[in-house]
């Protein structure tokens, strides 16, 4: 089976984000980048699928600036076989342009199943997976927590409020992976050493996106306002409850 996994390199959740003074983006200086956490579940599922289907091969695809190759190396070290880097030529494309280019590459290379994270944690848009499916005309299941593949079909389970939905879809198809799907493996030491000998093909976004134009323009970046400090309510229990209820009703207006 020809398996692809789409990953995005995102800032580490522990990085202190600073915005550029002119609001045009975030300061790249001092930001530590990681593989998107949900993308790790996607990588794990892709490798597991390969292990269960002899003769399969996993290609990791990342669209982004040159530094994205670090994320690609991590995926290769975890056990993906080869990689495609679509260099965004520092254009920071929106979900639409990204999905257009990815869909084209997936179609060109003839992948039969594609995994992604349920969302990238940088902008939390959760758009690319569905759009890729749309452009390819493939079925897609998002927030997948359980997946079984047999006889050219996949059975995917996802959680919805109050229950579960089970989808049976024909392949090729694309799956947006959720945390509970699996436990991502670590990049083992032999894996890290092997990763640098695995092939990485480089494509250019300008060549792959066709005539797609961005639908979203990011005009201004700013940090969320700082949270006001908490307030201690004094007095005995009865007085505290009274004051708390009053504050919730009149100040916070939540009850």
């Amino acid at each position, binding site marked *: 089976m020809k398996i692809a996994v789409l990953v995005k390199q995102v800032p580490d959740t522990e990085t202190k984000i600073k915005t550029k003074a002119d609001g045009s983006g975030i300061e790249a200086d*001092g930001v530590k980048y990681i593989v998107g956490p949900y993308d790790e579940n996607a990588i794990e599922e892709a490798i597991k699928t390969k292990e269960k289907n002899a003769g399969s091969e996993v290609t990791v695809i990342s669209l982004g600036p040159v530094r994205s190759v670090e994320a690609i*190396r*991590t995926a290769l*070290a975890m056990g993906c076989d080869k990689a495609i880097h679509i260099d965004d030529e520092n254009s920071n494309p929106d979900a639409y342009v990204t999905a257009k280019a990815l869909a084209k590459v997936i179609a060109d290379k003839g992948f039969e199943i594609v995994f992604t994270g349920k969302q990238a944690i940088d902008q939390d848009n959760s758009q690319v997976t569905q759009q890729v499916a749309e452009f390819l005309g493939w079925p897609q299941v998002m927030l997948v927590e359980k997946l079984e593949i047999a006889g050219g079909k996949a059975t995917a389970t996802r959680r919805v409020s109050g229950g579960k939905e089970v989808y049976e879809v024909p392949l090729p198809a694309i799956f947006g992976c959720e945390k509970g799907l699996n436990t991502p493996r*670590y*990049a*083992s*030491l*032999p894996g*890290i*050493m092997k*990763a*640098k000998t695995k092939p990485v093909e480089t494509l250019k976004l300008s060549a792959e996106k066709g005539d797609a134009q961005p639908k979203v323009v990011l005009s201004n970046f700013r940090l969320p306002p700082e949270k006001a400090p908490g307030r201690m309510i004094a007095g005995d229990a009865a007085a505290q409850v009274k004051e708390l209820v009053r504050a919730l009703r009149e100040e916070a207006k939540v009850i």
Partner: protein
Amino acid sequence: MAYKVNYRDVEFNLFDYLKIQDLGQSEKYAGFGKEECSAILGEALKFAQKEIDPLFKKSDQVGCKHEGDKVTAPPGFKEAYHNFAANGFIGMDVPTTYGGMGLPVGLTMAATEFFVGSCIAFSMYSGLTRGSAHLIEAFGSEELAQRFVPNMYGGKWGGTMCLTEPQAGSAVGDLSTVAVKDGDQYKIKGTKIFISSGDHDLTENIIHLVLARVEGDPAGTKGISLFVVPKFRVNPDGSTGEWNDVKTVNIEHKMGIKGSSTCTLSFGDSGNCIGYMLGEQRRGMPMMFQMMNEARIACGLQGAAASSAAYESALDYAKVRTQGGKTLILDYPDVRRMLITMKAYTEGMRALLLYSANLDDKEVVEKDEATKEKYAGRLSLLTPVCKAYCTDMGFKVTELAMQVYGGYGYIAEYPVEQYMRDVKISSIYEGTNGIQALDLIGRKIGQKNGEYFRELYEEMNGFCTKQAAHPAFASEVGSIKKALDQVGQVTMKLAEWGMSGNVLSPQLHAMSYLYNLGDVFVSYLLTDQAVLALAKLEEIWKSQGADNEEKKSKICTENDEARFLEGKVKSARFFVANILPQATARTKAILADDQSPLKIRF
């Protein structure tokens, strides 16, 4: 409570100061550039934080259990151990022949700091397995190595080192375990105590390396041989056979590292315990020393890693705890004194250990035999310093961490009391620190007619000469030079005492001497690093157009890298100004040679 470490300082040591990435140009480490080393280091930290750190509390609160004939490690240890092994972490720095990873020793040491710092008890199992497997690999026959080693590095079987007996602790030569020849193998009989990882449920089998005396061999260390003694026999085809008459009599209840089992093992109660001799007969001690030397440095790492974890924890606490209105305790001078003391010691120990580990790598890649020997000799000289200095200072740092926390440090809700209890053992096992000091003055200083010592001295002296007029550090360099000369002076005195037949005074002052050498060497390393850090900081200032103090200060507040570099400079200054003078005071005391300890009637 999550485990934290100053990752940048680890990187600074490896890539900026020691430049381990240059090893990648050698044949042996071809391909280990900075990118690969960083990826490995990053993965190690991730593993420590996500998989080992959650075991820290349980390791202490649940501990090991001995029920019936089974010893169990705390919950979660087994799964984590197998995960650890599967990632290749057990045999990181050993050759790839039998399943090691063949990584540089310095890189391995840096990664291991994370494993040890996040839970010392957990790291004991893999550490002992690695050490014992490496010993079989180094001295065993091809057949023996093939039979045992791959499964040990692979995490299927564990390993131990069995020296101690009730009457033979520091004096290993007094051991009474015997080996009787039985065809190609030996029958082992005896009792070993305090055996770390001696029994547990992490692995299917445990391979003990046992020191014993072949029947008829002379008393003392010269009559000792080394045996591979599995808990379950291993058939020549690799399959596991019957139980090998190794019985766990008891496990100890102890102050710290409760998640690491400490066992009394009875070998051959029923006369049915088989051992395979490793290497030559009566050569047990020199071989065991390979493992012990590695283990001594690993012990030093326990001191350094616990310090680092305790420091980070205390620092975080000091940044949120207020007393006296809105004042953070971080802002009280006495708390700041404690924190910078911890920081400076921690960075000093890390620098000492990584420098030492790097000697191993330099030796391996070096082609010239004389230089090779020089590196090996220096490492052997520094080994007792790494062990005793880092474990004693390590304990001191964890104690300071508790002091920073105040009453909250003393209670079990916070991690620092556990760091302190866990790390204490490191100054006792692997040869007590007292024994290390004797090793330093009795064997190491005089090795090869004092040549290794002289070369180390010359390295420090050369630094002092080179940087004597350094615009920022001339005063520190002057202090180091003075303290170094005093080390030289005391070394002469020790020799003089020895030659005049006074053997007691050198023993009496051995520990002070070891601390002095440690303080001076660490001062040198920290200041040498500070010279580099300041140069880098000045580049940042220059590139950002900071031409006055205000702008420079602003950059150090806002830019993480600048803040780190400035912190390195402060660590060095503080260490030389506040800690190094202790060496001068001790020098005075040594030369005064007060005999009260020897004369007092207890």
